């Protein structure tokens, strides 16, 4: 029981089942509207927003394929417009094709400047890419101070967490939740989930009980939040509470997200149900490979984690972590690639990754609390001794 953590929401939220029902309903309506008149104002834009929500919260990864269909059709009917370029940029960013997204944004900027949506997307890409994070941080602070909206505070807090400013990140998340004055459960569930990740996975000393609390809250607000279920199941598995973990994952199977099968395989293996576990692991493996074939950059980091873990293919993990690092050289991507290199026995390449991480991130404060800090400090000391 962590009473002090209670989410102090100002007003009640729309029930998660209603919100999901309405999202799916609105998403289908947007498609219908788009096919009737693809050039209609906001027709394509609404689809991108709603498909992103479906992927983010419902684990509906077919959203990536549907967005590809969207951009193909936009190209057919309105190829040259800045509007289509922005849709392209959004869909490319969603699939982690950041360089492509940036190219589209540059095209739009050359043709008369970026809209607010374009600027916002550019900022998201810089954040995901780990580019000029001080400027991104300043912009995030400015935007969230002006709007006060939870949807703007969450990216600020996530950036602070990336920069290893964990206390402030925690405060920003909690402030955002406390000051939330809308009825949609999506941003609140998202904030709770992020707090779970912060306490369970990002903090140097993970606090599983806190992570459990926030994941549970996220699911309470949005019962079909697939990622929250997967992460909470992981926490339960750590406690040995396999029955509860299984109960969490079973309702998430229809989403088709391979992470559900992966976690379920781990749970079943721990329960001693070897054949069932292997079947789930096979489904997870084929699910990841199908996703990687179509959307490599979007799922490279997740795939690397899978193969580093019970997916049990160190070489594939290293390959994917390298792809992810090349696409998005964040400190976390360096750490993942380094671990994968070591596990794959690629000591020389691991050393090169450390050197590259130092070169890119050595001056950043976050670097000092990364796993590279020790070797960096050792080198500095030996340099000092030599001098």
């Amino acid at each position, binding site marked *: 029981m962590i009473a002090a953590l209670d989410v102090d929401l100002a007003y009640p939220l729309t029930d998660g089942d209603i919100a999901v029902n309405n999202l799916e309903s609105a998403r289908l309506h947007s498609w*219908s509207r788009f*096919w009737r008149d693809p050039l209609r104002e906001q027709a394509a834009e609404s689809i991108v927003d709603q498909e992103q929500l479906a992927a983010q919260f419902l684990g509906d990864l077919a959203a990536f394929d549907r967005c590809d269909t969207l951009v*193909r059709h936009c190209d057919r009917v309105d190829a040259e417009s800045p509007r289509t370029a922005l849709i392209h940029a959004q869909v490319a960013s969603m699939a982690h094709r950041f360089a492509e997204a940036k190219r589209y944004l540059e095209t739009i900027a050359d043709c008369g400047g970026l809209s607010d949506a374009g600027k916002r997307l550019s900022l998201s890409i810089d954040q995901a890419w780990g580019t000029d994070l001080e400027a991104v941080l300043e912009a995030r602070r400015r935007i969230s101070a002006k709007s006060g909206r939870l949807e703007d505070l969450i*990216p600020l807090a996530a950036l602070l967490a990336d920069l290893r400013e964990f206390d402030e990140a925690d405060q920003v998340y909690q402030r955002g939740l406390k000051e939330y004055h809308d*009825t949609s459960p999506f941003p609140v569930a998202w904030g709770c989930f992020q707090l779970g990740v912060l306490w369970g996975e990002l903090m140097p000393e993970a606090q599983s009980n806190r992570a459990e609390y926030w994941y549970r809250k996220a699911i309470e607000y949005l019962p079909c939040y697939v990622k929250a279920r997967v992460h909470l199941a*992981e926490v339960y598995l750590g406690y040995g509470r396999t029955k509860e973990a299984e109960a969490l994952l079973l309702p998430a199977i229809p989403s088709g997200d391979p992470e559900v099968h992966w976690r379920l395989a781990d749970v079943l293996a721990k329960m001693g149900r070897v054949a069932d576990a292997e079947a789930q692991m096979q489904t997870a493996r084929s699910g990841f490979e199908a996703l990687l074939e179509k959307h490599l950059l979007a799922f490279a980091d997740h795939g690397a984690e899978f193969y580093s873990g019970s997916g049990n293919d160190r070489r594939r993990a290293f390959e994917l972590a390298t792809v992810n690092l090349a696409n998005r050289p964040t400190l*976390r991507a360096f750490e993942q690639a380094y671990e994968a290199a070591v596990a794959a026995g690629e000591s020389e390449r691991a050393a090169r990754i450390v050197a590259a991480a130092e070169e890119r991130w050595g001056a950043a404060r976050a670097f000092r609390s990364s796993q590279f800090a020790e070797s960096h400090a050792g080198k500095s000391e030996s340099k000092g001794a030599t001098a």
Partner: protein
Amino acid sequence: MSDHIDGPRQIGDPAGDLTDLFAFTSPENPAHTVLAANVFPSAGVTAMFSNAINHSIVVRRVSVAGLGNDAKFKAGDKEYRFSCKFDVLQRDGEKTIQRGTLTCPDGRTLRFVVNDEKGASTPDGVFRVFAGLRSDPFLLAWVGGMKRVPNLLQHDNVLAIVIEFDTQRVLNPREGSLFGAIAETTPLAAGINPVDSPPLRYDWVGRPEQTNMRLNNSGLKDVADVRDLWNQQTPFAIAEELQPLFRKRLVDSLTEWDMRDGKADWAPAEINAAANVYLDDFLLFDVSKPTSDTSFLEIEKKTLRGKSYTTGGGRTVDANVIDIMITWWVNNDREFLHGGSPSATKPGTKTFPYEAAPNTELQTVADSVDLAASPDQVWSAIGKFGDLTWHPLAASVRLTGEGVGQLRTIETIDGKRIIERLEAVDNPQRLYRYTNVSGLPVMDYTGTFDLKPKGSGSSVEWRVQFLADNQPTLIVRIIVATLLKTGFEALTKRFGALK
């Protein structure tokens, strides 16, 4: 596990967004009044109400406190409040059900089922309520100043709350028959910490388009957006200190509207007077007089002209409020201005619940393939309506007739017979469109083939829209998707995939 932050632009709850408010004499019973409020713009066909929101229509008695350029409508203190709240969803087998509760001004409550067209009534017949999906009755056929366009909300649906009541027994018009109505969406319960959480209103509406066309007139350049500030105001009680700000914006906005045809049809004093009237933002209706599709704003206009009004004002479902408002603002009713569309998707009905049944949503299955062959090569293979030799599932095709209107009878390899009609063909653009006549469990089935050059090859899109008939939609989607996929696989095998 890593999760990057790349969230969508807006993830608010559209179910709390009010779109329109109506007040009119009941077409079924002239002794009754109907109030209706719509929420959730562009709602999907399975949309439901938020269970966290109180949906209220509030009525106050109003008196005419000034005429001509001193026109003023003064609202009394007594409220007649109709509030609807909704439950969480319940499953009944395959069906999802939502129930709601109307609290009437006399404190009685009335339970109802969402989307039940009969609605629910109190035993004495004084109150009746419907809540559920309806065709959006709003008509928006103007954009960017004075450009006429087809209805931008064509085929859209909204969630409607329609309340009908016995006018004499509820509003007691002997004490005054003129009323003002607003609709508002508010939190269902106070905050956990009421001290930190001031009362909140998600949205409210009086007369149509107070925010988007008057306070935020796109013709006014470099002015601050005051819509949020307005939405935070309490209906019937706009903050004294903010009234000058809003009044000035309304004056500027109405002045700009007046000049959109290049002519000044309003004297400055008249614009000031109209701005004052608009500042008291409630939908006026007089229950002692009839309402009609053209009576919207008649009470305001006559009063501003120093005359007695003759209609019940209000707003009916079919009132073309945008044309009425634009005509008044732009040329002071000199000449009626029509937008680009004469009516909403569906007209209202003369029977309860008066707002038209929802629009059905066509299902779409679309796929495309990029081929390593020139557009002419590919079109010569697939561009003939009567030739499906390229499709592995078609055993034979027999053509009847010629040109547009011709029929093709397809025998499939598993012995089924499908008949389709050619609706349009454009060989230079490499496109044809056809409909299904029989053989598939569908209605309103339209298929479109569209071939375009792409790089050194071609891109073919095949799009099918339909409504499932006597089969679950999912089954029909699978049938259609298989048809497309099999065809495209054969084309890829034949021409190769474009690298």
